[in-house]
């Protein structure tokens, strides 16, 4: 039986392939963007509060910084204890249009050696982990100049 594809967190991203986008919200009064999404109150202290509507974020940004996890992270991160741990690369990306930085895992196969601060990356669909019934999906960052 095929596994169901389920976002690891609801409402944070949408779409497939080139149409993949992170989803934030924007305040109708002050136009501040929020990621992770704020759906109830605008957090700008100078804003009286507007309507918060869903908005896709820019698909491309620049590396603010990067690192990796050389040791297996603790729960609630899900890993298979039977398998040896392979370093996982993480990238913090500055989105110029939204003027915010979003952290994410790098696409599989991307190591710190592939990265420099300032390099262009884009958000791509990714898989966090799979269990018997479910493929848990997430976002990954991939350098635009590096092929899969």
């Amino acid at each position, binding site marked *: 039986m095929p596994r169901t594809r389920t976002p690891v967190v609801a409402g944070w991203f949408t779409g497939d392939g080139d149409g993949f986008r992170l989803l934030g919200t924007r305040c109708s009064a002050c136009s501040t963007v929020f990621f992770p999404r704020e759906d109830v109150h605008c957090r700008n202290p100078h804003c009286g509060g507007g309507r918060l509507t869903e908005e896709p974020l820019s698909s491309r940004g620049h590396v603010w910084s990067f690192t990796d996890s050389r040791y297996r992270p603790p729960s609630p991160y899900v890993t298979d204890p039977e398998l040896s741990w392979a370093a996982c690369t993480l990238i913090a990306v500055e989105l110029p249009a939204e003027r915010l*930085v979003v952290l994410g895992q790098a696409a599989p196969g991307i190591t710190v050696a592939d990265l420099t601060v300032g390099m262009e990356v884009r958000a791509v669909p990714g898989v966090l982990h799979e269990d018997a019934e479910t493929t848990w999906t997430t976002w990954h960052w991939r350098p635009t100049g590096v092929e899969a």
Partner: protein
Amino acid sequence: MTRDVAVLGAGMHPWGKWGRGFVEYGVRAARAALADAGLEWRDVGSVVGADTVRGGYPGYVAGATFAKALGWQGARVTSVYAACASGAQAIATARAQILAGLADVVLVVGADAAPKGFFRPAGGDRPDDPDWLRFRLLGATNPVYFGLYARRRMAVHGDTLEDFAQVKVKNAALGARNPYARYRKAVTAEEVAVSAVVADPLRLLDICATSDGGAALVLAGMDFARRHGAGDAVRIRAVSTVTPRFPSTVLDLPDIATDSAVAVRPGPETFRESIAREAYEEAGVGPGDLSLAEVYDLSTALELQWYEDLGLCGAGEAVKLLREGATAPGGRIPVNTSGGLASFGEAVPAQAIAQVCELTWQLRGVAGDRQVPDARVGLAANQGLFGHGSAVVAVR
């Protein structure tokens, strides 16, 4: 009216991995602080505990837990939690009670029995908790954030791995002289360089461990201090407990993203810079007045960041300050004379209190072979998860 409060006593339980409960460490530190103050527990009008989330309910209500363990005597009780800044918030609470005339003598205690390995969030499924989310979605442990900051400094300011290692070498040499430190051995740059990479570019010896430990202070109003014959005691002159200002544009634990600066222009200073500035303003001193500083060196690279955030040098100049030896013993502004977190490992609720213990001993001139000559003004700075800034200025 003076806004000073006197530090009558300072006490610690040595840091380590002792395998016992946090109450024992806290009580031992409290008794040491009371003995140092020349006071009895029954003289204390208020007890403030810095909470440890790893102690179950006794940890969440640390003030009452320590009061019971010392023997119920009716003191006013408070328990505070602000992650790594819990100890500083406990000091701030004690000071506010003293300045408000609610208590003459306040005992501040923090202690922790740390877990093995990485800090992790509390259990359960909590998708509305950013601390839970960063582990669940990204496996982003604390060292991941330290690695991001370190790489960013290398790219923006040209810091090198060798510079980071020199911070560890400096702090380890100081920790070797501190009887309360967990690690009491000198470390060489080569030892740092061959230690395992934890979160690129940082290695095991760049990152602070987690430890058991306890620290306590006995604080009092200046009138009480004079009556007690301690009118010349070390004084706490300022405690800053600020939050960030929107938009906060530096990615910070435990968040997955920063605020957006698209609608509101970011202020001229970062959150960490504001922590120190508020303390300076309240104390009426500036970075040039400091004899020493204790900073929260969760990593070697983060210690360098603090130099700039405290205004000890300009942006990007921390490495220059380090290389000149300005922050080493005998330098213009020795930093982490205690040995820092590099030599202690973090015992969360106790750590900010331990920083003030070191300031107290330095300002009294009793810090032994770690002593900064003629120390007059010290600052301890720290930052707790979820937007808790803290800095304490102590003077002699």
